């Protein structure tokens, strides 16, 4: 009895130790991120007080704004004051929107997550399909097409592509709705509960509103997906081609397995860890917010929030948004590592 209890507590500990180690490095990463962001923002030539009050304001208004923003304090004091506010969970108040940063993030981040998730699903599915097909038919026109698509996706400016798609599908063909997250008819009749337009419109029970939200999501998601699938298809193709030269493939071939079986049964499980990492990295970069896409499609995501905050020298908003994006980046990385490890053990078994 005593023995087994001891054993179970040991087991718990063996779980607790790596977790606390991970949490420690997580906290350290965020602290480092905050420090670097703070230093970079303060080194930029933007004067947040002057940005806020404008050039016509009186000297006394300007001095008052500096005082209110705490800019009269030495830099280390400013930094630790900020860390204190961030730790209390609300990240302080944004200078440029006049709202609590936490509230701003709760509004903008779901918009970005929604777009990034739709884009990565599209991008991963199409990218994998394209990469696999290209590798299996290396040198044929299919391969050529896949390589062209991936090169195009890499090199075409996303801003231009967004406007082009809007022109084609919105202005000319009238298949897609215009920029924005929802039609004006629905935007203010559907209550924002989660901040995710698809979920909010779904629970509102209005079929038209849900369809409208989905339609608005389509074009920006396709633009971002195109960018993501370029990387995914290229790496999938390259990974499969490398594996095709391995001894185990030759062995399988000698045993009479056809190409399809080799790729799907032997190669894909072997490279699944790599593919997962590539997809996760693409997803993470989408979560940072795609500023240009968000600008063209009037998508109120965290990328634009962060950019406008940077131009305003809005320190609380910059730090808050960077920390949240950074934290999700680190979390996503950890989840990917876990996923890759599981895939590896699964394969070994």
């Amino acid at each position: 009895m005593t023995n087994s209890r001891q054993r179970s507590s040991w087991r718990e500990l063996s779980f607790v130790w790596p977790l606390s180690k991970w949490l420690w490095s997580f906290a350290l990463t965020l602290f480092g991120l905050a420090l670097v962001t703070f230093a970079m923002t303060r080194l930029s030539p933007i004067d947040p007080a002057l940005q806020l009050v404008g050039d016509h304001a009186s000297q006394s208004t300007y001095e008052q704004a500096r005082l209110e923003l705490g800019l009269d304090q030495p830099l280390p004091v400013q930094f630790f004051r900020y860390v204190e506010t961030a730790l209390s969970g609300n990240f302080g108040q944004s200078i440029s929107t006049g709202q609590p940063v936490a509230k701003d993030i709760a509004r903008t981040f779901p918009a970005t997550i929604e777009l990034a998730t739709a884009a990565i699903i599209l991008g991963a599915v199409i990218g994998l399909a394209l990469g696999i097909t290209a590798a299996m038919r290396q040198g044929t026109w299919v391969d050529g097409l896949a390589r062209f698509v991936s090169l195009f996706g890499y090199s075409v400016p996303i801003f231009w592509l967004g406007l082009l798609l809007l022109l084609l599908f919105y202005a000319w063909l009238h298949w897609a709705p215009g920029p924005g997250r929802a039609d004006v008819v629905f935007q203010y009749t559907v209550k924002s509960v989660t901040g995710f337009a698809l979920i909010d419109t779904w629970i509102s029970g209005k079929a038209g509103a849900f369809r409208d939200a989905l339609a608005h999501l389509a074009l920006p998601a396709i633009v971002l997906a195109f960018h993501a699938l370029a990387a995914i298809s290229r790496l999938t193709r390259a990974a499969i081609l490398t594996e095709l030269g391995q001894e185990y493939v030759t062995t399988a071939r000698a045993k009479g397995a056809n190409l399809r079986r080799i790729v799907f049964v032997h190669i894909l499980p072997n490279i699944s860890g790599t593919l997962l990492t590539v997809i996760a990295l693409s997803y993470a970069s989408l979560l940072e917010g795609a500023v240009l896409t968000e600008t063209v499609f009037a998508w109120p995501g965290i990328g634009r929030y962060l950019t406008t905050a940077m131009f305003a020298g809005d320190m609380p908003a910059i730090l808050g948004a960077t920390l949240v994006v950074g934290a999700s980046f680190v979390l996503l990385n950890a989840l990917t590592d876990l996923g890759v490890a599981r895939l590896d053990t699964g394969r070994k078994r």
Partner: protein
Amino acid sequence: MSIITSRAKLLGTVFSLALAFSAPAVHAETPPNVLVVAQSIDDAVSFDPAEGFELTTVQSFNNIYQRLVQSNRDDGTKIEAALAASWEAGSDGKSLTFALADAKFSSGNPVRPEDVIFSLTRAVKLNKSPAFILNELGWKAGNVDAAITKVDDKHVKLTWTADVGSGFALSILTAPIASVVDEQTVSPQAKDNDFGNGWLKTNSAGSGAYTIATYTPHEALVLQANVNSSDKPALESVIIRNVPDVGARRLLVEQGDADIARGLSADQIEALKDKSGIKVLSVPSARQDYILLNSKANPTLGNPAFWEAARYLVDYDGITKNLLRGQSSVHQAFLPNGFPGALSDTPFKLDVEKAKKILADAGIKTPFKIEFIVFNDQPFLSIAQSLQSTFAQAGITLDIQPGVASDIYARGRAGKFEMTLRYWIPDYFDAHSNASAFAINKDNSANTVAKQAGWVIPELTDETLAAVKEQDAAKRAGLYQDLQKKIQASSPFVFMLQGNDQVVLSDKVKNYAQGLNADQVYYDKVAK
């Protein structure tokens, strides 16, 4: 084969899903009782009239709040009644007594003298960006309580210490910061002595045609008709959508998904001009673009001969006709057309030979180089490039250094620049708003544009202060003409352009009104 089929199926499914969902969404026109405006609202900081000083918020105030008096929509020089039914100037020339009209706030509360007192005193005490406008009357946090008093339930009296006439005081009261807020609604929202500033940043408590229904930063400002207003609007709501990309804005108005689009570039206006279903409204604005020289930067920049030569090195016609195409016109004095006393003659044109001669006669040796700091934005960069090419013809190299606005302002305040391109928008509808910027700098004590130019002008300062005191309107206009002529002839400012706002409207939009000054945007009469 089978893989190709499955791939095709997959792609087919994805695309048809995306398209199937988007196909039924073929544009709805904007709802008949709603006005949809596409513009950028990224600049908005505060919808509190005591604080808001950005284009987006300033353009909203006439629709949400009322002031005691207001500028006439068509002729801003005329001041007309708003919340005040009538007013009387005191015999001392330093007071005004207003009789309040019967009006109600959106809450249903009546507009009382207490609301006027609360609104003006809080604006002075909060001391936010536009507070300097009320400071012109000598109102400071310490004395404003005594300056604004209740006479009886219908009358309120304003007194001031500054040496200015009642005509000028009325002009000051037409500024957005003089908007009257509902004290009974705002006071309970006050926190930490902020006079309800935190709450009013995103809410409204006015008597104007509309109230703020919701404001989502970087997303939209939604205005709802104020049923209690004496100024009842024709439409139920106005949605001002943030569409940061001008290309997307153009598409929205072209497709009928927006009724009004603002801030389009000259190229886009050109392309939209002849499209059916939309019209381009061209409204002169009081905005002016000018070159600011720092006369303290070096002896050449402080030499009046160089200031004069610079006036002949600007391709005024080229800039207005080829670059800004209808978005600006040539204007060379510090008061914009539409302000009383504005000088409209344009004595300068591009004349490189003349400029060279002026420089040579003054013994200024060419070639030389000037550091030219410019807002990293259009149209400033295009104008800067035009200047670069014309100055180069006289042997002057302009080294263009693009920068962010706050940095350029900070360098202006600190006197750490040589030459820069600026724009000026009057803060209230009175010549003094501009004159006090360009023609006051007695001893480098106040932050005026003349001070930023390092230009000490005690005599012009006295003339400017005399002009603001003058009670006779015609005489006053004459004084400003005289000031403008002096500054036009010799000053470290080169006035070049007056703005022209181009607003794109759907044909359905009727009765949209916009005036000369930045705050004069009116949605109340708009019908569809």
